[in-house]
């Protein structure tokens, strides 16, 4: 696995105890590590060169702040510069007063355009828009069917034209939106190679025909060095306005996002983080900078947690908590909230320092699944009153959950601890309103 930059720099600077200014030699050694980290994150090598040169200039002779080690000081400078390069403040989707507004998505094959169209439509509908999706990928087999199926799922209308003229379909799609009183059109286009003249021409023609407010390029987060070639060509031929970075729920560092920003100047607007239609988020440059360096993304973590936390469950659990009757059902409910946040490994990847955990301290994700299975194998009465769970019940539950009796015992022990904790918290808190994550005694 890749080492994160802080760790790398820690070892570079471990020989140094002195404070004061960063020397040229120190900075050079640090820059070698920064370069490696960025290249391993798939930032384009040309971008890395420029970036490192810039950071070096700023770092040499810089005062090391009182509270920081030289390594931390370099990380601070690198992070600041990287965030600035990523675009500083969050860029926004620029729409106009025209009705309907038009957004067009472009990109290479397999980047995730069609799903992104549906996700974007879903997101913007939540913000009060009435979207129509237009299927202009007349090449890939069943691409139009795919968009239609997504439309049905979301209950968002889809315009599918006739024939194979993508430009005409786009034009008619916009007209169709007017007829249907839709105020937003999102156009799905075929995946195309940036070196395919004719197809690039088609994209440019669609753009001319419908004059979209925004053209967004969908880029796979796993893309390597070639991202800049593709993005430059798309910038030149269709002059897109922003980027949707897809498949960010994987573990790729996503250096392509940085490269594209650096080379084309186009901001990343959205991040696609899962296969579900609500897995589209507003992109955060600072979080991305940390991710590229392997330094965790606390902000995203907090957001994810908040989203996953279902208010009703929270209120419910809180009620019981105050009454001191936190049952296994509540425990299960909280577990499920946690699971909604994504795989534990994903979450851990966002916590700074968590990737420093030794291998054997790795979180046992199966424990979650196991605990869920165990509780599900209990009767309603057992869940409310675990004290009735005797030896033979334990055996039955273990068999039902496909675990050992030992696992059941462990789980019950953990729950008892959790319950005790909850009781204490409940009495301490009294009537004070408590919101947020309440996950006492999780099995890890």
């Amino acid at each position, binding site marked *: 696995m890749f080492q994160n930059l802080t760790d790398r720099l820690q070892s570079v600077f471990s020989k140094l105890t002195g404070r004061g200014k960063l020397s040229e030699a120190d900075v050079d050694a640090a820059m070698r590590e920064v*370069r*490696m980290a960025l*290249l*391993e*994150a*798939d930032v*384009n*090598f*040309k971008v890395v060169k420029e970036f490192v040169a810039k950071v070096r200039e700023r770092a040499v002779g810089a005062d090391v702040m009182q509270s920081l080690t030289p390594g931390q000081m370099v990380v601070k400078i690198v992070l600041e510069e990287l965030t600035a390069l990523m675009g500083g403040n969050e860029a926004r989707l620029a729409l106009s007063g025209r009705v309907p507004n038009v957004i067009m998505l472009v990109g*290479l*094959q*397999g*980047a*995730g355009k069609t799903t992104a169209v549906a996700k974007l439509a879903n997101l913007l509908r939540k913000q009060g828009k009435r979207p129509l999706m237009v299927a202009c990928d007349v*090449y*890939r*087999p*069943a*691409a139009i*069917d*795919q*968009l*239609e*199926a*997504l439309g049905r*799922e979301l209950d968002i209308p889809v315009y599918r034209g006739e024939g*194979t003229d993508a430009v005409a379909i786009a034009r008619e799609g916009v007209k169709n939106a007017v007829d249907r009183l839709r105020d937003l059109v999102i156009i799905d286009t075929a995946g195309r*190679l*940036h*070196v*395919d*003249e*004719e*197809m690039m021409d088609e994209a440019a023609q669609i753009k001319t025909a419908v004059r979209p407010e925004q053209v967004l390029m969908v880029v*796979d987060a*796993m*893309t*390597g*060095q*070639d*991202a800049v*070639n*593709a993005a430059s060509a798309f910038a030149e031929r269709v002059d897109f306005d922003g980027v949707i970075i897809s*498949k960010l*729920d*994987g*573990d*790729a*560092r996503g*250096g*392509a996002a940085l490269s594209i920003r650096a080379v084309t100047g186009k901001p990343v607007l959205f991040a696609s983080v899962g*296969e579900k239609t609500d897995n589209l988020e507003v992109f955060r440059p600072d979080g991305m900078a940390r991710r590229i360096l392997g330094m965790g993304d606390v902000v995203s973590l907090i957001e994810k947690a908040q989203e996953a936390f279902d208010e009703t469950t929270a209120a419910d659990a809180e009620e019981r908590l105050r009454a001191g009757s936190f049952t296994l059902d509540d425990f299960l409910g909280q577990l499920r909230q946690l699971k909604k946040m994504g*795989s534990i*490994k*994903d979450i851990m990847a966002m916590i700074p320092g968590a990737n420093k955990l030794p291998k054997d301290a790795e979180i046992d*994700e199966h424990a979650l699944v196991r605990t869920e299975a165990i509780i599900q194998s209990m009767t309603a009465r057992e869940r409310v009153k675990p004290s009735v769970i005797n030896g033979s019940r334990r055996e039955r539950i273990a068999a039902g959950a496909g675990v050992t009796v030992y696992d059941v015992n462990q789980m019950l022990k953990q729950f008892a601890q959790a319950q005790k904790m909850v009781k204490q918290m409940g009495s301490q808190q009294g009537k004070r309103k408590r919101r947020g994550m309440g996950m006492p005694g999780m099995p890890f």
Partner: protein
Amino acid sequence: MSAWLDRLTQGLSRTREQLSGQLNVLLGRGPDVDEAFWTDLEDALIGADMGVVAVNEMVERLRDAAKRQALPDARAVLEHLAAEIAAELRRPDTEDFIAASPSTVLVVGINGTGKTTTVGKLAKAAADEGRTVLIGSADTFRAAAVEQLHIWADRAGVPIVESERGTDPASVAFDAVKRAALTGTDLLLVDTAGRLHTSRDLMAELSKVKRIVERESAAPVHTLLVMDATTGQNGLTQAREFNSAVGVDAIALTKLDGTAKGGIAVAVVRELGIPILRIGVGEGADDLKPFDPEEFAAALVGLG
């Protein structure tokens, strides 16, 4: 659809022209093997997604070799490197299980790498050779995945076993294997849903599909990982995870008709010993080629 194919072939030849225009940057700068040459070579290899650590080692070794063997000029150095990479990529013990009969091939990979298209191309090629082919559609997740595969099956003129969206992929795979055995199929191709290697649930689901297929298939079962040539360093992690979940026997490297070189595949072959069997060079039915290590290595170092 013929307009579609026309467009494609035209696009492809243009791609090649563009590529050859870009090639030989390293040769174009003259025969001298100076410091600037080594720096440029390093950049070119990193730019081909070979990975910075691997490139450092490679260039180190190459510098040595250049000195020891007194390689006369830039071309000689590049040829030496290409030969070295080709040797690594060549796996003489590789069995082309796709060409064998009977054979069951499970096609897996990340979302959007080209699995379905590759299944379509493989089906077409095998059917053209007069082999009996059956396609199993175990992507019961993605919208219109079955419809897409259906069109490919029609193009190849081969039957398909499919099921409702949302059904257990393992059960479709089961049906496909049964049907293949009943009909004396030479080649059964099972398409699966794209999935991220980081999703435990989906990887477990895939293992289950593999288990069922292995249990039920009388024909030998192999797994083909479809990798996108534009993938960066994460490609190695992908291959590792898929390999540990289902065991990967070979790789199909797609989208080599773009400008990406697919250097990460070298890392995969090196670390996991998984051979590359096919390359994808376009969206058409005939755009799947056998993998040629020499050609690939030459293109990688800019000698293509």
